[in-house]
């Protein structure tokens, strides 16, 4: 109950943020641009629209999650609104979870908005709707939920600018960690390989949520992989939230 009250209020605040609409605007711009780009290229035009569209949802969704997520707690402390809130009989984890869910709700609505516009743009080109695109979008949303948790973790102990940089670094590492896997395969067994393996397990692998290529090229996706990716996202996000709560639990609000 307390969590949902805080979540609703967070949503109320988030939807007033201009950054959200600026990013939404850019996403729409990209959809339209992809259509234009499609006209200029020789290859498969529809593929380009799909590729650019999905990539835009992913990119601008990620920016929303990071830019808004890193201000989530910081703003409450900076504007001192947190004093009255935490003086009420609520647990700090309830506060954090409420903040997180409020932003996830915001990101969800934004993802839906972007997807609808994207599908409309695509429909105007192909006059068919491909439902399989929704799978790719759903997993983009799962990734965004994880990124929101990442932003929340960093925002519990640093300023929004630093937290945004850390989150961005996390995002990049997350999408490049597959190259670590390649590296492991190439290196002979030994100490170096063991270290890389440990790193690979700790570091996130955000490519797990990437079904864009499969969907665009209409390749089959094994259900088991979908299930595993979902479980991976759930566990990783839960771990991040737990971390944020642990950091936040004993923090002084001077």
């Amino acid at each position, binding site marked *: *109950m*307390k969590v949902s*009250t*805080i979540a609703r*209020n967070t949503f*109320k*605040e988030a939807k*007033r943020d201009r950054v959200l609409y600026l990013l939404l605007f850019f996403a729409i711009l990209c959809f339209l641009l992809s259509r234009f780009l499609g006209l200029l290229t020789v290859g498969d035009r529809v593929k380009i629209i799909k590729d650019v569209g999905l990539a835009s949802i992913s990119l601008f969704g990620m920016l929303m999650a990071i830019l808004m997520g890193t201000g989530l707690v910081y703003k409450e402390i900076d*504007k*001192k*609104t*947190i*004093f*009255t*809130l*935490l*003086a*009420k*009989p*609520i*647990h700090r984890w309830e506060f954090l979870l409420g903040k997180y869910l409020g932003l996830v709700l915001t990101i969800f609505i934004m993802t839906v908005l972007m997807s609808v516009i994207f599908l409309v743009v695509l429909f105007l080109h192909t006059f068919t709707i491909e439902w399989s695109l929704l799978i790719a979008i759903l997993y983009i949303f799962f990734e965004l939920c994880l990124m929101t948790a990442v932003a929340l973790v960093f925002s519990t102990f640093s300023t929004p600018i630093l937290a945004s940089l850390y989150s961005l670094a996390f995002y990049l590492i997350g999408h490049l960690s597959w190259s670590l896997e390649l590296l492991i395969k190439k290196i002979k067994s030994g100490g170096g390989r063991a270290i890389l393996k440990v790193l690979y397990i700790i570091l996130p692998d955000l490519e797990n949520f990437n079904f864009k290529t499969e969907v665009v090229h209409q390749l089959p996706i094994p259900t088991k992989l979908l299930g595993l990716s979902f479980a991976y996202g759930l566990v990783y996000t839960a771990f991040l939230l737990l971390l944020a709560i642990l950091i936040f639990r*004993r923090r*002084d*609000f*001077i």
Partner: protein
Amino acid sequence: MGKVLELDRVYKAYKFGFIPKKKQVLKGISFYVNEGEIFGYLGPNGAGKTTTIKSILNLIFPDAGRITIFGEDSLKPRAREKVGFLPENPYFYDYLTGREFLAFYADLLGIHGQQKEEKIKYFLNLVGMEKAADLQLRKYSRGMLQRVGLAQALLNDPALVILDEPMGGLDPIGRKEFRDIIVNLKKEGKTVFLSSHILQDIEMICDRVAIILAGEIVNQGYLGDLISEKVLYTEVIVAGLPASEFSHLGESVSASGNRVLLKVYEEQHIDRIIRLVQEKNGKIISLIPRTETLEDIFVGLVKNQ
């Protein structure tokens, strides 16, 4: 009378700066607040009043010491169930209107439906903000924020109300209204803990006070015990006679026009002044005995530091 709030040797140091420097802010604070009293927490700027209050509310964690609220360790959120809090210079979500703001806290406190509407209406009325209820908080003045802030603190019908500088930012009428509200809270059986450096306010309404200086409690007790009823001196204003006439009877503090202000320390001198004035056809304008005030104690303590 039970103890509603008790602090036992609470220490807190702030670390700040790139290379952390330690600053001991609370140096073993101990005091208690009895049920049903108005307790004044008095101290100059930077003494550690807000830090103490934040420790009580678990917004910061003391390095050492124990705080109990209604016998419950303050570390548990349960301890704050019957506590209301108004921070100094209150900051709230400024995109909410006064009414939405109170509704948010009502939701948070689990007050619903009909009861919620009634409470919001009642408290808006109590703090005189019903006209501004549908205005966004960003359009409120400091005093107005203070008022809805107080409403927010009272929403859960708290048994202990903690107010950090509640009169700051209020105009004289507002201060009087707040004083009345606080005295009324006491009449309802609630306990009030308020910090202030406005001595007048504390003197008027508090039962007991604690004085904090540089992180230490230097004096605490019933107001009546701290302030002696003894007359310190009498201020006499005389017109029509030069100050030199009285130099052997009292200390002349100031003179303007044909008036002289005298500070008279000995009681028998007052009679002699009256006689002298009558003999020489002067006039006594006023004669006021000065007893010790909280301010005297306070200023004395601060000077001793």
